[in-house]
């Protein structure tokens, strides 16, 4: 009977209840939209990190990453490459020769990381070809071609056809330089990365480094993300002499960003629900004060405090939860639409988005995994919101309430 009473009580003032349900639905929709947007952004960021930057796994000489000294090449690299290539979970493996050096033009210089790549494999592993905004891919025949990021090109006033000089130390520690011609300017979703990295063909770099056919890095892309831990363990066990890292270890800032964004999402949800709680409290207080006589009468007849509290709690929960499905449905429909067609944030500027490592088209994803948490927050809001009105109700003295 208490449940029936609670349900019917919320419909005594239909307009008031509908308004509060609508605000709960709107708040919930806003919260879900934020969660979906964050989830979409994080997923896109992780995908960019894996598919266009570092791959799932990277293999280096154990000492290479200490100083990026080019003498620490992967010993028996070709054998290692072949061994990894034929693992069933592996999709692509590509080698890179890497060195840090100086890029110089007639107008200035900048510190860069020079990546020597096998063009066709690199295009598949890091989508380098897709990122070209000006110029053309590497010519298989021509020598000393370089691809530079748009940010670096702007900074150094370079364009396709411009000449530049790359200076670095070779494997013996000698300073070497090479003149390169810009064949392409690329732009990824990570502007800081574009500013630091230049790409040349591995053969050109190895000639300058005097490192023969060796290389410093193997980038491994897997068939799916789920097999990452397993493959990493498998490789570590099989090749203990190498330093094998996952993208989480290579790009800890991305991993941290994903984790902290989850927390931010919940904080935003809590703030929205906290604001809504005042509306719920106000509505429930009005409902209680309007029914002072009735509550006094029920206490006079013998309803105890626990039942009275339960009545107010149930009314608040019904009121809150009635708006919940509407909010969730609206969130599901809208995020579903944008998940399919994408949310174009180019209005915010590609430069700005890419400086944080994000693309301009975001595909929000309905946060199914966070739905339980969202419902928990909503239920918590209802319980917290009912406390004050419920205390008001159970503290009423029947003799005074009946006089009203």
């Amino acid at each position, binding site marked *: *009977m208490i449940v*029936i*009473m609670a349900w*019917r*009580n919320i419909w*005594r003032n239909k307009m008031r209840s509908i308004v509060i349900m609508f605000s709960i639905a709107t708040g919930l929709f806003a919260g879900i939209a934020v969660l979906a947007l964050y989830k979409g952004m994080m997923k896109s960021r992780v995908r960019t990190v894996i598919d266009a930057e570092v791959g799932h796994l990277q293999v280096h000489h154990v000492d290479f990453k200490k100083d990026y000294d080019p003498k620490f090449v992967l010993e028996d690299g070709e054998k290692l490459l072949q061994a990894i290539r034929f693992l069933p979970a592996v999709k692509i493996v590509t080698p890179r020769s890497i060195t840090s050096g100086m890029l110089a033009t007639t107008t200035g210089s900048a510190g860069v990381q020079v990546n020597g790549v096998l063009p066709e494999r690199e295009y598949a592993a890091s989508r380098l070809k897709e990122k070209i905004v000006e110029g053309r891919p590497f010519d298989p025949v021509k020598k000393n071609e370089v691809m530079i990021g748009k940010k670096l090109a702007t900074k150094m006033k370079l364009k396709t056809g411009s000449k530049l000089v790359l200076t670095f130390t070779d494997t013996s520690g000698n300073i070497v330089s090479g003149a390169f011609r810009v064949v392409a300017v690329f732009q990824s979703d990570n502007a800081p990365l574009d500013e630091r990295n230049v790409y040349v063909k591995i053969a050109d770099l190895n000639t300058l480094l005097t490192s023969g056919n060796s290389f410093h890095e193997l980038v491994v892309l897997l068939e799916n993300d789920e097999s990452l831990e397993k493959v990493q363990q498998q490789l570590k066990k099989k090749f203990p002499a190498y330093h094998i890292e996952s993208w989480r270890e290579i790009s800890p800032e991305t991993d941290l960003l994903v984790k902290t964004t989850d927390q931010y999402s919940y904080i935003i949800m809590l703030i929205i629900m906290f604001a809504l709680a005042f509306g719920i409290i106000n509505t429930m207080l009005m409902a209680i004060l309007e029914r002072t*006589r*009735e509550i006094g*009468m*029920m*206490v*006079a*007849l*013998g*309803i*105890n*405090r626990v*039942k009275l509290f339960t009545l107010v709690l149930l009314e608040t929960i019904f009121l809150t939860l009635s708006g919940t499905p509407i909010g969730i449905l609206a969130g599901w429909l809208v995020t579903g639409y944008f998940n399919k067609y994408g949310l174009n944030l180019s209005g915010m500027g590609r430069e700005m988005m890419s400086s944080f490592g994000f693309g301009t088209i975001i595909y929000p994803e309905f946060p199914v995994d966070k739905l339980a948490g969202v419902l928990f927050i909503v239920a918590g809001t209802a319980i917290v919101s009912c406390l004050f009105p419920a205390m008001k109700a159970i503290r009423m003295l*029947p*003799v005074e309430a*009946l006089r009203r």
Partner: protein
Amino acid sequence: MNTVIDAHNVSKIYNPKTVPVYAVNNVHLHLERGEFTALVGPSGSGKTTLLNMIGGLDKPDEGTIIINGVDVTQLSANQLINFRLNNIGFVFQSFNLIPVLTAKENVEFIMQLQKVDKAERDKRVNLLFKQIDLEDKLNERPSRLSGGQQQRVAVARALASKPQFVLADEPTANLDSKSASNLLDIMAKLNKEENITFLFSTHDQRVIERAGRVITLVDGRVVKDTASVSTRHEEEATIK
């Protein structure tokens, strides 16, 4: 006969530390089972305050109220809630039915609080609605009932818990004469046939005339405690 209400030296004092006002002043009241008693007096004479104290809704500042052997002035708030539920039926002036429940649910509600099982509840509801002659209004909400019908449902609700007695605060005040007469007929019948004890506070001459006993309060004191006119007439007729 056995004692249902036994109030001794009961006083209710407002502003005891500044200018004390005695709403009820040293009242003695003794009610036996089956009495049909009217508490009368001008406005502000202390009728409702005395009823509230007897009903355990308010505590006296002095004196004791013993109901069915229990001193209600010594009970805690929670014990009082339970005591009221199981021992006292209330009929209020302005009906006070729960508007979101049907007539049947209003009566059933009390029995649910008492944890009476469904079969017994249905049995009692049917009997009570037969007694108040509203069997066809079981599933109507209070808003669809007339004032008289609502007050009859309130009487059924008061009796649903099988109380020791029923306290009715001005039960006919908001009713037209036909509805009031109808309600009084029902209560008188229940009193006569089921030996249910009723204590009313009232201004209504019709209630006073039908009461078996009339207690008059003035300024919080009992100034007269007599058999009613009708009872006196009946007694005189019997003597002659």
